[in-house]
């Protein structure tokens, strides 16, 4: 299947700016993983991030989600600065993510994994659970119902197997579950970290279709996708950002970006770009 076999969605999205990162820099001792990167995402937009290995893509993602605090620069979510916020608070503020190596809660069921995704939207604490069990039970019931519906919308197959242990799922289903869990948090933005890694062509096509379906169901939801698979990058994102050695070397539509000499150089090396 060639890169151009999927209909591309490039309708211009003039939504408001949801996420903004200004001058993001991350230094680990002597190593600068990310250097002065500006990033922005509008509501409903899909941004792809590509770059050779070690370019700083995952680091950038970790900066946006609060796992690292930027050495310089700041992240703004709907105008609100996320500086100094802990990862769990940022998740609650509306940034959800998946992980390169699917981090599921293996000892729990598929349904429970999705319910946990709703943690930031629920409120029962220890005292409520102990002293007002009816409230706690009602909350859990609501979560279970919502999680069921969410699973159904992501994949009816997963919905069927909602009581199965998450650790027993095959790779493609694990990704889907992670995405369902991320959506459960009712986020503004979903960050996908190499969602197609470990997948073959067929699974990747299914993944692309899944994400497109999700976008149709949640038009205001923004996506940032780190990827290596060019099929995915060519079809899904409105814009593609290219990182190399921690710096941004391109930020435009895929067509424009793939022709940039700097980008070609980064991927293919100097000689090929002069060919």
């Amino acid at each position, binding site marked *: 299947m060639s890169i151009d076999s999927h209909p591309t969605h490039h309708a211009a999205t003039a939504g408001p700016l949801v996420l903004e990162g200004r001058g993001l820099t991350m230094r680990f001792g002597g190593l600068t993983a990310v250097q002065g990167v500006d990033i922005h995402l509008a509501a409903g937009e899909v941004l792809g991030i590509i770059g050779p290995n070690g370019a700083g893509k995952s680091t950038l993602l970790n900066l946006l989600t609060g796992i690292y605090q930027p050495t310089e620069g700041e992240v703004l979510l709907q105008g609100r600065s996320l500086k100094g916020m802990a990862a769990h608070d940022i998740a609650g503020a509306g940034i959800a993510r998946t992980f390169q190596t699917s*981090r599921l809660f293996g000892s729990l069921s598929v349904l429970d994994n999705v319910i946990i995704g709703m943690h930031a939207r629920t409120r029962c604490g220890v005292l409520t659970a102990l002293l007002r069990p009816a409230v706690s039970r009602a909350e*859990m019931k609501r979560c279970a119902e919502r999680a069921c519906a969410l699973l159904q919308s992501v994949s009816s197959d997963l919905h069927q197997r909602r009581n199965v242990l998450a650790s027993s799922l095959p790779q493609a289903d694990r990704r889907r579950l992670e995405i369902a869990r991320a959506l459960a948090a009712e986020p503004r933005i979903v960050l996908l970290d190499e969602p197609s890694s470990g997948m073959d062509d067929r699974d990747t096509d299914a993944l692309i279709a899944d994400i497109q379906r999700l976008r149709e169901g949640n038009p205001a939801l923004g996506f940032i996708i780190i990827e290596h698979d060019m099929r995915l990058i060519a079809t899904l994102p409105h814009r593609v950002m290219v990182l190399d050695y921690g710096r941004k070397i391109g930020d435009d539509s895929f067509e424009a970006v793939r022709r940039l000499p700097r980008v070609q150089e980064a991927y293919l090396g100097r000689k090929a770009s002069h060919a």
Partner: protein
Amino acid sequence: MQTTTIQAPPQAAPRSAGSAAIVLGVALAGAVLLRQFLLAESWITVLALLACFAVALVAVQKRPLVEDRIVAAFGQCRPLAVGTGVVLALVFPWVLGGDSYAMHLMIIACLYAVLALALNFQLGSANIPNFATGASYGIGAYASALLAIHFGVSFWICLLVAAAVATIFGFLLGLPSMRTRDSYQALVTIAFGIVVHQLLMNLEWTGGANGLVGIPSPTLFGHSFNDPITLWGHSLPGQANFYYVAVALLGLAIVSAQRLHSSRVGLAWNALRDDEIAARACGINVTWFKVKAFAVDAFLAGFAGTVYAFYVSFISPDNFTFLVSVTIMTLVIAGGMDNTLGVIVGAFLLTMLPEKLRAFSDYRILFYGLVVIAFLIIRPRGIFPQRVRNHEH
């Protein structure tokens, strides 16, 4: 680590009669087994009963359909199950024929079951090692004892105050444990336990190595717990009073465990056990939830400590050593982490067994250690391993 138990979606099992029969049958069988075990005199009887129990257990667990049916039955007939449990608990001392030694065993077993349930929040649900449960137990006991001896505070108020004091200790313990992991975290809790134990040993106002004596007997509406209970001409020894308190506490612990387990809190604990980073990404404040686990553990342990102090009316630091904490850990792990029933059965079994095998007298402790090791090798997931939550009732 996790075996992939694919659990079929719960079927709508035939209700009422069948399920009720199952509930009553299992509850009665359990009660009878317990009674015989407690009253057994010779070690042959004890081992025979154990063998029966083991056989029944293995038979059920080898047939997942049977197991699921039993669990479903209890889920459907919840009021009946609770009612049966309450009735059995109330009637039990009479069934024991007023044997005070048997009742003593039950009280201690109940207290350890409470302690094991307390630790289960941390160890079972959240996989946080905590070697200081014994210290929380001791702080609860000492707080009550001091209040009762020096200020004449009543048992019932002591329960609450001591639990509160222990909870504060739990928070203090939780805070340094936030940044540590695994062996390092284990050591922090061990260190706390030892510091508490040594302080209790050395401070004058805790009675030093001699401990505290003369804790007064609790009273309820004028009835002193030292006095026997008399009903329709039959009487139970004074211990029965403490038995009822201990059982009530166990009931409270079970309810707490269930409520927390099935709530957002229990799920969060399980999540951070499986993957802390993913848990954070889901909005879980991992640090705060870990501290909460410490606090809940300490709270229940403090309760148990109060009951213990008033029951034995004399406590010393050596009742609350590192080895006590280790014992509690063993109960949780052998019983089945994050499984309420498993933890209780494990606690009962491992608390009563050394006592019932008095024939081995001096070799008891050695035997206990060997049993634990054998258990862990043969059944690493515990007597009743963790079950997947059921959301469809």
